[in-house]
Structure formats: C-alpha cells, structure tokens
C-alpha cells in the first residue's frame, strides 16, 4: 500500500531536502538576471522557502495553501515578489522563482517512487497543484506591488505639479506642467481657488509654458478655471502661450474671449503689478542695478 500523496510529498521533501535545495539553487542561478542577486542570496531565499514549505506540509498538508499553516510560506513569497517587482523583473520571471522548483522536486519524487508509476503520477500531480497555487500567489503579490507603486507615483505627480506660488502681494502664479487631463485640472482649479481665498489675491497668472498640448478639452478647463477665479474676485492672466500653441488654438477655433493672455510669465507679472497698483522703476544711481519697486496707493 503506497503512502497517500499528501503524506509522501512532505516525506520526500524532508529526506531529500539538501539535494532538492542544491538543484533548485542551481536552476535559479543559471537563469538569473546578471547583477540582481548574488548566489548566496538566491540560496538563502530558496532555503528559507523550502524550510517553510516543509513545515507547512508536515503540519497541514498540501490542500490549504491559503490557510494559517502556510502563512510563513506566503510571507517568504511576498518578500521575494516585492523585491522582484521593485527590481523591475517581469511577472513571468517572478513566478519562475516558484515554478523552477518543479524539476528538482519531481526528480526527487521520481527517485523515491521507484517503479511505482501510478504513485509517481499522483505525487507529481499533487506537487504541481501546490506549486502552481504558490506561483499564482507570487504573481498576484507582484501585480499588487506594481499597482501600489504606480498609484503612489501618480499621486506624487498630482501633488508635485500644482504649486500655487505667491509672486507679490495680491499676485498668485500657477505654473502648470505636463498633461492637463481632467483629474489633474480639478486639483489645479481647487488649489488655485483655495489660495485666492486664503490670500485675497487680485490677480492670478496661469502659466502654460510647461503644457505641451492644448486641445479643446484643455482649453475648456482653462476657460472654466478663469471663470471660476473671476467669480471669486480675482482676474486671471494666461501666460506662456508658445507660437505653435497659439496657431493650434486659432485653427481649432477656440475663442479665449476676453481672457488676457501674455507670451511670457514676465510680461504677465508686469501687467499684474500694474493692476495691483505697483509700478516698477529702474534705479538711477546704479546702487540697485536690478531696479526697485514702489507701491503707490490706488
């Protein structure tokens, strides 16, 4: 009477542990990406996972990979996937970490089964099921890590790209960079309106030097932002419209209406200063060669 597969797999793993570990480590090092992990690292991780698997198999069998007994195994896999996702491995390469255990494990099972073909087939099937489930788990963790990474990056982009800066008393500037798709524009608009309330600014300059494409949706967002700012009592100036963007806007047929536009941020700033009653005078005596500013009461 042959042992049932769920009993034989742990036994084989127990008896031939070193042999399987050596073969697996070799398989890993052969297919490893250069410069990602040393042989010692790979060996340590393989050994860690095999030991955890041995314990889990001995205590609860192979059926319950999602169960509490397999938690240490899942921990090891989680760490491996996490590191590989960050090192830029592909999902296949990450899953291969587990799948490459098949050959050494099957060979050990074959050696232990002797001439009993039927028992061997059952054993191999049982082992395949376990390893496949673990490989799928690895792929899932990998995907989750990547998704978190991407979500965090786009969150960073949202925060980074919308600074509202105060240029002068009553003058705000919003240097816009990159794509003005709807979710970003929403953030832009909100932070601008918020700062207008906080500072009581009279003029806000929207600088689009860093916006590569202005299509009708972008233009619509700009017009809406300007209108909303106006309703809150601040006049908007759009600056940084490059020649190619200007020609494109004209061909598209977008009418910017009575929105004041300037070619450069400097021009817009000058206009904003005069709107707030500040004049710029160049110093005569040369003591202050960059010029000085005076505020005249309105």
């Amino acid at each position, binding site marked *: 009477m042959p042992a049932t597969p769920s009993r034989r797999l742990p036994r084989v793993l127990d008896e031939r542990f070193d042999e399987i570990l050596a073969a697996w480590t070799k398989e890993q090092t052969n297919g490893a990406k250069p410069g990602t992990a040393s042989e010692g690292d790979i060996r340590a991780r393989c050994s860690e996972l095999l030991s955890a698997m041995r314990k889990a198999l001995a205590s609860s069998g192979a059926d319950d990979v999602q169960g509490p007994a397999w938690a240490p195994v899942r921990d090891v896999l989680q760490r491996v996937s996490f590191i590989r996702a960050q090192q830029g491995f592909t999902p296949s390469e990450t899953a291969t970490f587990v799948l490459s255990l098949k050959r050494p494990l099957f060979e050990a099972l074959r050696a232990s089964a002797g001439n009993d073909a039927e028992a061997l087939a059952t054993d191999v099937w049982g082992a395949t099921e376990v390893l496949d489930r673990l490989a799928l788990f690895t792929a899932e963790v990998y995907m989750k890590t990547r998704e978190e990474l991407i979500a965090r990056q786009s969150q960073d982009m949202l925060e980074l790209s919308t600074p509202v800066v105060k240029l002068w008393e009553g003058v705000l500037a919003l240097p816009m960079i990159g794509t003005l*798709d709807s979710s970003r524009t929403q953030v832009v608009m909100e932070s601008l309106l918020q700062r207008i309330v906080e500072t009581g600014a009279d003029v806000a300059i929207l600088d689009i030097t860093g916006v590569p*494409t202005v299509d009708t*949706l972008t233009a619509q967002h700009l017009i809406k932002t300007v209108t909303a700012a106006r309703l809150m009592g601040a006049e908007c100036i759009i600056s940084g419209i490059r020649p*190619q963007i200007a020609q494109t806007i004209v*061909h*598209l047929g977008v009418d910017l209406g009575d929105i004041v536009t300037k070619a450069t941020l400097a021009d817009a700033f000058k206009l904003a200063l005069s709107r707030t009653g500040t004049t710029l005078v160049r110093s005569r005596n040369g003591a202050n060669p960059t010029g000085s500013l005076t505020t005249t009461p309105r």
Partner: protein
Amino acid sequence: MLTARTERIAVRGPHDIVNVRQVVRGWCLAVGMGLVDLTKMVTAASEIARNTLEYGGGGALTIEELRDGVRQGVRLIFEDQGPGIPDIDRAMTDGYTSGTGMGLGLGGTKRLVDQFDIASTPGQGTRVAITKWKAR
C-alpha cells in the same frame, strides 16, 4: 503613395490618450515635421483619441508613415465600434456637441490637418482618418 511602416495602439482609457500624443509626436519627429505642424498633428490626435474614447467607447489607432514621391507624412486612423454618428454634417459644425465639450473637436481637427476623412455607420462604429504632410 507608399506606406513605409505602421503601428497599432489601443485607445481604451484616459492614460491611452497621453500615450497616443507621445507616440504620434515620435512619428512626426521621425519624418522631420516642423514644430508647428507637429503640434497641430499631436493636438488633432488628442482630439480624435478623446472622441474615440468618450463617444466611441474606446477603440484603436493605426499610425502610418506615408511616402509619396519625395513627400513624407503621417496618417492616423482611429476606429471604434461605438454607437456611431447619426448626422456627420451636424457633428462637424463648430459649437455642436452631444456631450459636454466645446463642440470644436471634429471641425477644429479638420482645420489642423491636411486631409480629413470620416465615416460612420450608426450602431456599428466610426472611422476617422487624418493625414498631415511634412511641409517642404
């Protein structure tokens, strides 16, 4: 006229529109288009890609590099299997929109490019082909 090479990319989500703009920019640079023409073509691509996504429910873009004698250009073919456009003349009219946009996308795009072809069958989808030649 000769098609030198082609590429097909999906238009399935908002991030694809960004991708479309970047890929089209690369193709226009590859044929040596000037900055103004390049900006016009990228903007046109952005408009139609957004239409494909918002009104067509997503689709695909085929990019072609064209050679006609010494002339070089880029053609973009946007295809979707959406509800189609019942009245193309009306859709091309500036200021008309069935959505929430400015209603300038199609008409404006036609003015940005050298050749504009639109075909639509209600219930089956829409195909928009735009071509821009490199100015000599």
